[in-house]
């Protein structure tokens, strides 16, 4: 049943009454998978390397962890220094970045070591986002700042000296009220990112230079922002529940103009939510928009027509809603994560500490290679082998066939030559005899 699902919606709310987070089928609106547990906080739901689901608890200093295939209950709880207000996982799944009050913690997933704590924000961190190549991450906070951090220098800086605090690559202070959402486009460092703020504006900026390209003012405070994959449209959700669409391309040239062109005159607003829109996500093909709101619902919109296609109802304010391509364990409920998750440490990991204490010496990584996987692996290999074999025999046969064909071709050529030769003889004989006979007669 689940084989054809390409894209699905993953949502969570604060209450966690039915489930902590839920995977919805976009076509039918049915639930594909649910993960039971406490409610999750805003911007605190992440997939970790297609193997785990992390969710920051709403009011507790905890991060809940589920292995994707086991949905029934929380498998692991990571205790943090405070309530996690924002969390992000690097695209390669190596690092988890979490905002705790005004600090940003960076954990290495495989060891659980706390590699760095960044304290450049003056107030609480509200959102975190990685660039798609994982080289940088953006952070934004209640202090109106957006910071661009290079991951490598942040990590290297932390290991060299304790007192030395790493510097962000760029500091953007264009907003005048707390930043509520960040969206980082694709293209690694060349990406463009969008930030939303309570000061009723959205800013679009380059990650590489930190230059602001566009500032759009709305008539309402903006609480969420996203762009489509091609970055031709920007969507901004406001506190009053409206979602505004801004086209990042020039107005198409209209050769014919109809006076009754009411389609565009309404302005490009998605109306439907009653309360503030907390999260937005656009599908891969840029045709559908998922939005979550405090009015206890997530909605799926058709972008070209701006209609609400489907409503997913929740038991509390929706805190996370994203469209994603669900990894197979999520759908099938089978398989097991290959890497064990170490609990996240609460104290900064230093090299010196590693030699003294027992736990620090473990710079190794645990990998699950149980019996469970053996069968599967060998099975796959067998399959591969037979496939290879089949291909091989096929090509061999073909080779022989070609060879025989080749031989017959030679024969034919020989035959042709022979026939030509006979023909030649026949001709000469005829010519001689006929001429001679004519001459004589």
């Amino acid at each position: 049943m689940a084989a054809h699902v390409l894209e699905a919606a993953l949502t969570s709310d604060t209450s966690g009454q039915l489930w902590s987070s839920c995977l919805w089928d976009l076509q039918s609106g049915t639930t594909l998978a649910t993960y039971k547990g406490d409610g999750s906080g805003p911007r605190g739901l992440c997939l970790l390397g297609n193997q785990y689901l992390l969710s920051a608890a709403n009011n507790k200093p905890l991060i809940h962890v589920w292995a994707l295939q086991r949905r029934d209950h929380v498998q692991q709880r990571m205790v943090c220094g405070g309530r996690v207000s924002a969390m992000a996982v690097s695209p390669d799944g190596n690092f988890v970045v979490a905002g705790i009050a005004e600090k940003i913690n960076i954990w290495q997933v495989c060891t659980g070591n706390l590699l760095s704590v960044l304290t450049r924000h003056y107030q609480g961190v509200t959102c975190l986002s990685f660039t798609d190549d994982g080289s940088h991450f953006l952070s934004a906070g209640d202090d109106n700042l957006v910071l661009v951090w290079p991951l490598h220098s942040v990590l290297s800086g932390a290991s060299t000296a304790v007192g030395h605090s790493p510097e962000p690559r760029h500091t953007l202070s264009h907003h005048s009220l707390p930043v509520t959402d960040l969206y980082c486009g694709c293209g690694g460092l060349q990406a463009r990112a969008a930030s939303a703020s309570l000061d009723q504006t959205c800013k679009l900026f380059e990650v590489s230079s930190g230059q602001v390209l566009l500032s759009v003012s709305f008539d309402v405070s903006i609480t969420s922002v996203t762009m489509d994959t091609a970055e031709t449209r920007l969507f901004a959700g406001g506190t009053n529940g409206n979602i505004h669409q801004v086209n990042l391309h020039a107005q198409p040239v209209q050769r014919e103009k109809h006076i009754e062109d009411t389609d565009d005159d309404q302005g490009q607003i998605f109306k439907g939510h009653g309360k503030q829109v907390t999260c937005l996500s656009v599908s891969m093909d840029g045709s559908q928009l998922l939005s979550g709101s405090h009015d206890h619902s997530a909605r799926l919109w058709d972008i070209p027509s701006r209609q609400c296609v489907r409503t997913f109802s929740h038991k509390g304010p929706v805190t996370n809603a994203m469209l994603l391509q669900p990894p197979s364990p999520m759908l099938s409920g089978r398989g097991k994560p290959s890497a064990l998750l170490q609990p996240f440490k609460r104290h900064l990991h230093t090299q010196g500490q590693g030699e003294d204490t027992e736990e620090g010496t473990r710079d190794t990584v645990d990998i699950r290679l149980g019996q469970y996987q053996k069968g599967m692996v060998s099975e796959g290999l067998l399959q591969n082998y037979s496939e290879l074999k089949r291909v091989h025999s096929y090509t061999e046969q073909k080779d022989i066939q070609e060879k025989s064909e080749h031989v017959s071709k030679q024969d034919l050529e020989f035959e042709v030559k022979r026939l030509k030769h006979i023909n030649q003889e026949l001709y000469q004989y005829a010519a001689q005899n006929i001429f001679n006979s004519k001459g004589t007669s």
Partner: protein
Amino acid sequence: MPKSAKKRKAKRADFNKVKLKVGKKLPKADNVTDTSFKSKAIHLPDQLKTDASQPTNFKQQNVKDLLTQCNHYSASVRHEAVTGLKDLLVRHPAAIPAHLSLVLEKCSELFVDKDPVVRKAAIGLLCHTFSQASTNQISPFFPLITAHLCCAMTHIFEDIRHDSLTVLDACLEHFPSLLTSRSGQILTNFVGQISSMKDKGVKKDATSSSHRLSVNPNSKLTSLQWRSKVLNRLHHFLKAMLSESVSTGDRQTGDVGKKGFVDEIFDGSRPLYVQVFPYSTSSSSTGFLIGSKTPSTASLFSLREFAESLLPLLLETWVEGSPGGEGQSLVRADVSDLLQGVLDVLGLLWQCLQHREQDKQQDPTKTSFLHQYKNIHLHLMSGFPYMVMEQSKKGKGPQRDQSGGTNVQASLIMNLSICDVMTCSLEQDSDGTAAEWLDTVFDYLVSCLSDVDDNSADHMENVLRVIQHVIKVLPKQDLCEDLLTAVHNCYQSEEISDRTRQQIVHFLAQTYLQRDPGLQKSEVLTNWVASLPHYLVTMDTANQQQTEEVLHVVQSAATRGHSCMVENLMANFQNIYGVGGLLCSLSPPLQRHLVQLLYHLPLLGGLKLSTLSQACRQREVGVPVVEYLVQILLARSPVMAVCEEGTPPVDTPRILSFLMSLMIGHSVEELKDLQQETSRPDVWVPGCRTQISCVSLELRHRQKALAKFTCECLLQFSSPDQVWKVVGAVLERYLGMFHTLPMDTLYAVLVAMVMLLHPGTEIRKELMTPIMHCCWAALDLSIHNRIPVSDRETEVAEENWQGELLHAALQTMASSQGVVQSWLEHIEAFVKEGTERCNTEAVAKVLLKLMQTPELQRPLQQTGVLQRVVGTVMVCLREDENEKLLSSMVYQASLIK
């Protein structure tokens, strides 16, 4: 044939010796010319021939003629030609683009003309052409011009070299970008002008440069004056170069500069299209920039080499001009210009190098510059601080007072420049050589700040600039703190002028905003920022820029959790946000700034919120600003919060009461006053308990927007039922107390009923009657057009508003069965009492309107009393001749039945 005797005699007579005798007058020769006649010249001011086809000058010469004459061997003809050409171009500006190439070519050839008058005229022509042409037009010919300019600069004749500087001035004035792109040629020539190459044979050691200062004893100008002139130009040139590279650098790196920054406003009425990446032609700067490595000019030029060759020359110049011995600090007035020039060029050179530094991390340039620094420091600081003597009047020799007063202004400028140049090296100072002179510089700066007077505003900027630089590069915290303390003392002193104070505020604001991690702990800055809210209240709000800057500082301090500042802000709350406070006197963008500050306040109690709601009623505060304010308050209240942590700054009951008072739009006192007015209300609806008082249209529109907005906000609360309970209770209380309502409040009440009342919820009995009266009053008002209007325009606006009021009233009635029922009963009683005819008629019209409204037909039917009431009304109207009204009433009543 023999010659005749006569002829022979005559021939001989020609050769007779004329005997001249003393005392006798010399007889006039036969062939003498009589010069006694008088003559007059025929002056032809212009030619008779006119050629209308081509532009000509006052002599009717066309361009072609004039250009050929430019090559004439006679200087006067050349001069005539050049002036004629200029005249022509003045008369016909349109001719310039057509002949630009020829004119510029001839003109630049004349830079090296031997005749000074011609050169001067040619430069005049050049200036005129430059002023008329654009950069793009000139740029193809500019290589030609610079080639000739370089010729002139290196010319063997001294006066030609002198005049070349004038050409350079013209170029610098009009096309600095073009000139700097060819900086390679010209900068080298500058050095050449004040120096001569050392012999190649002399072995160069590492420290000495390849040039030495040249002295020309034959020159009219003293070499000091000449050098000063050249340095002045060099200063201008470097300045242009720096600004050019800074601007291009901005474009590339996207610094704070707002280039390419698009600001758009999304309004819901139309789709917003923004081309984020517009098609942009790359800048046409092909030239040599400071930052770029590949010079466009053929001569391989690097700024570093140039700096290396120039530095020793500058130092030599300084040494020659500076006061004699060690520790002498008196500078003669005539050399002060020169010394100032040296300092300016030094400073600029450093800036250029530093700008270049930004591109490449490791640059040997600076190190070489620093290498020279030992010398610089030695020379510059020998007599610091310097005193420039008063420029002595050109009077008689004996009366000159050598030891006279010092020129305070000039010496101040000079000393500051020295400070500036010296502080440049601080950044790279590793071996502590700076310590020797740092104290002197500091003392000087502090003394500058301590004795300020009214006319020191000009210098204050320089002083502050130097201090800013020092603070930026200085590694030691305590010293910075001292400087800041001095600045702060200056700020606090009462003697300084407003302008100076503004400068200081600007300086401190910049310093605070720089986000220097070290400076954030600075006590002085912290104190200063804490005092800012008070300053905001007292400052002159006319200076928008300053206000904005201060607000910016306050805001960033608030975001950084500056508790003292926030406390001070709370203390000044009334003055800032109160009626007649700062908020009302600012422009909308600044009001938004001020409103944003509210976000950071830790606790907003009931008193503060009531202050705010009063401010929101002020007309000076626009609707968008009020909406913004409400949104910010909501963001700080538990309404928006996802999870509860700590106590929110605004609690739910308070924000509810704030919203309600905003919706009502009038304070309790105002409403009380309305009740006590003994006179009839402005609009009197017969039979209805609710009466209406007039409010200006503008205020009504404002309140309409606000009422709708507050209702939308109220809908955001988590439990609509509870919100309605609160709203209902408030409305009940208000409507119970006040029977005379302003129009805008009436509208707000109805809108609240429409938007907030959950369908299906029944209204309480106590609220029902007042609401019914409100509806009746509104219907009556809008149906009968009771508001007097003056002109057409307001009439339309008035109609619109009344239409909306009517709509709201009808909706309210439609939403509740009870309201309709009680109204019908009420009017039945009213009509039965036997009022005047016109009143009955008014009621009848309202009733008709109700019956005509589709949404109301069902509730009317369900009351079951409709037919009876209609009958009663019709009985009262029976003897009337208004048959139309009657018949339509009968018809509508039959429809509903």
